[in-house]
């Protein structure tokens, strides 16, 4: 399986395979970022994410978490989403990135990860943040790892149900 589930939850992340506290720039906790490796959706707001991004042994990280405003939907094949994927390939690749999916046909956000303080400035230029608002958060150790840079230049998903840049069919 090339995908798992990711959600930012207020309460305890019941049954999660990896979880860590997420903290806003002003220092207050905004919830628990949690991941579940299972087929069934674990919580209502969970989104599909490239499973390679999840690492219970992962170090602390900073993320750009892009999510659509409530009620807004955008096709995954929208030109803006295509162009954001091109820009991700063109620019220096972060520690990890994944689009987020609720279903097979819509873009429901993206997560971009850096593990170094020097990489934080890149999060402010997240190509996906040109589509929907981005929240810049610190995430404690225990959930986020690395995704190898895609070979390129493929911007398509390997199966419409899978997040990009997961790069194998099946």
């Amino acid at each position, binding site marked *: 399986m090339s995908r798992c589930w990711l959600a930012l939850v207020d309460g305890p992340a019941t049954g999660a395979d990896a979880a860590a506290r997420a903290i806003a720039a002003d220092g207050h906790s905004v919830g628990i970022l949690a991941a579940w490796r299972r087929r069934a959706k674990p919580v209502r707001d969970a989104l599909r994410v490239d499973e390679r991004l999840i690492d219970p042994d992962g170090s602390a990280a900073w993320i750009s978490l892009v999510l659509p405003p409530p009620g807004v939907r955008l096709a995954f094949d929208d030109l803006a989403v295509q162009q954001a994927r091109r820009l991700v390939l*063109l620019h*220096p690749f972060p520690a990890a990135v994944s689009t987020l999916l609720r279903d097979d046909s819509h873009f429901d956000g993206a997560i971009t990860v850096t593990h170094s303080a020097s990489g934080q400035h890149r999060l402010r230029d997240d190509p996906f943040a040109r589509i929907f608002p981005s929240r810049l958060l610190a995430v404690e150790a225990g959930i986020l790892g690395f995704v*190898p*840079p895609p*070979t390129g*230049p493929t911007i398509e998903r390997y199966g419409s149900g899978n997040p990009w840049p997961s790069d194998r*069919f099946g």
Partner: protein
Amino acid sequence: MSAPHGARNATGAVGTDAVGELAVGGQVPDFELLDHAGNRRRLSHLVGGDPTVLHFYRGWWCPKEQAFFRRLLALQEDAEVAYSRMVSVSVDPPQVNAAFRAGLGARWTFLSDPDRQIQTQLRLRETTDTLNDPYVPAVVVIGPDLRIHAAYNGYWYWGRPTRDELVRHLRDISRDLRRDWEAPTP
């Protein structure tokens, strides 16, 4: 100017000339090199499950390479939606490759072989350029098993594949690779 090295392969695979150790029907060694961002990358991981254009080039400074990259940039527009990959290899260090790649607008992986280990292994050193010791310009089109479907010796510019030739090779490999090539219909 040397004649194309090696003989044509008799396996029935489509191709033109062999170059160095890269002959149609053979396999590219599964080498490891640093990419343009300094990450160590293995060829088989870069190729994954897709047909791949593997391109060896002299360096950013060569007008012929600049012209050929424009051809690859045009191919990029198709490859990005065709489940096909591209990898370019030179002796330039990662920082130089990163700058060249960014200037081109290339969205595929560039690999660096500054120690010329893979160049030596593949017998792809261009001996007529003792200043730069670059790669002989070469293109191979390979499948996920790293088997060479087509090989082009680009020492003379017209030895390089056209965009149409590359598309044809990528199509042939894809046809063999994708079990659902014939679209499912009622």
